[in-house]
């Protein structure tokens, strides 16, 4: 990987890596630090990483950095008051659905959360997610499906409460 290719990676992937991390840890400075570390590592290993694999490499490094960070900080994922957010959503309908969903996602465990984020935001396949998160394809499938059903039930529950 040459210098201009690396800078291209910054342009293309910095935002998505940052979004992925920020959604997970909900801390701007820490998320920025993790992104920076990921790009540092990419630069150090630029001769080993193929340009086409750069994105998944970045996500892999960032994900593991994030896990380390969570372990170090022992940060509990922020779980905002779900009932309040849900009640609001029922009155304002669709624009608030996003917030409700976000609140529900924050109730997932870190692995499920990362799975959902990688799938929905980045559109990675089960296999790619498995590579990034060091899981088997079937594990990704099972964990992700559990997360989906959990989220669906949360949304159904809210609709019932609203109606």
């Amino acid at each position, binding site marked *: 990987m040459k210098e201009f290719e690396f800078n291209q990676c910054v342009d293309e992937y910095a935002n998505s890596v*940052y979004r992925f991390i920020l959604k997970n840890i909900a801390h701007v400075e820490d998320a*920025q630090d993790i992104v920076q570390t990921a790009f540092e590592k990419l630069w150090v290993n630029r001769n080993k990483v193929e340009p086409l694999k750069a994105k998944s490499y970045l996500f892999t490094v960032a994900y593991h950095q994030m896990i380390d960070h969570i372990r170090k900080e022992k940060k509990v994922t922020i779980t905002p008051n779900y009932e309040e957010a849900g009640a609001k959503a029922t009155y304002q309908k669709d624009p608030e659905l996003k917030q409700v969903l976000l609140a529900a996602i924050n109730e997932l465990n870190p692995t499920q959360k990362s799975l959902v984020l990688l*799938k929905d935001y980045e559109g990675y396949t089960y296999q790619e997610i498995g590579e990034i998160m060091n899981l088997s394809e079937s594990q990704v499938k099972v964990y992700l499906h559990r997360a*989906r059903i959990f989220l669906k039930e949360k949304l159904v529950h809210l609709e019932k409460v609203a109606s």
Partner: protein
Amino acid sequence: MNINETNYENYFLLYIDKELSAAENAAVENFVVAYPAYAAELDQLKKTIQAPEDTIFDNKALLYRLPAMEASLSPDFKNKLYKKPARLFKVEFNNQTKAALLSVAAVFVLLIGYRFIETNSVSSFNSTVSNTVKPNAPKLSSDHASLEKKDAPVYTTVRSAPKKINYRLSPKEELVPAINPIATINVQETNNLMAQSMPITKEANNIQTSDLPSNEIAQVANVLATNTTSKETSNVTETTTYQVVDTDEEDRSIYIANFEIDAAALRGITRKFNAIFKRNKSENK
């Protein structure tokens, strides 16, 4: 591929995750059309997909690699920044190093021993000095007996004023006054004595003392002094003075090697020990 009411959920999940082939996607869509009751469930699952949102990483400038930045750092400098494993120094003790270490240790032991002996000798010297210098010399009575002279036939009575000599026992101790013994009467004093006695001698025997040379006078004085001494010691009853030695001084200290130990503090402990043993003895009896 067969989607039915038991396995539809799995297909729905794979459908929304876009993990199905085109044919499978079509099969799921057909199933929903065939069974509208499940359409709502598929819609619910679709709602769990998060709509993409734009999050912008502001500090991209930090991430870019510029040629100037890279070039500005020399490879030597960058090499310095890399972490290197710490060097381990292995010390091997061969016979030579062992001998060297032992000799150093021996020198230390000798030095300490020498210092120990030195401090011991100094403390013993101090103790002997304090023992010997005690002013319990015999007191000279102020009334001297009449002096006899072999050469001069005239007897004269001379009163010599008692002279006070100060003895210093130790630098810290108070000056202890004591009356000088006879033995310490010096030649100077006897000369004065002579000078006083001379006029009387002159009157009695008409001896021309002026003709006598000064050397002879000195000789006479010496003889006089010795005679006086012998007379005095034989005649005067000796009185002995006793000095009260204060053992409760605060600055008494015992030296064990180089360590100064407060004797006053130790005394308390030894007394307690003694008391205990005495008590035990009496109990045994």
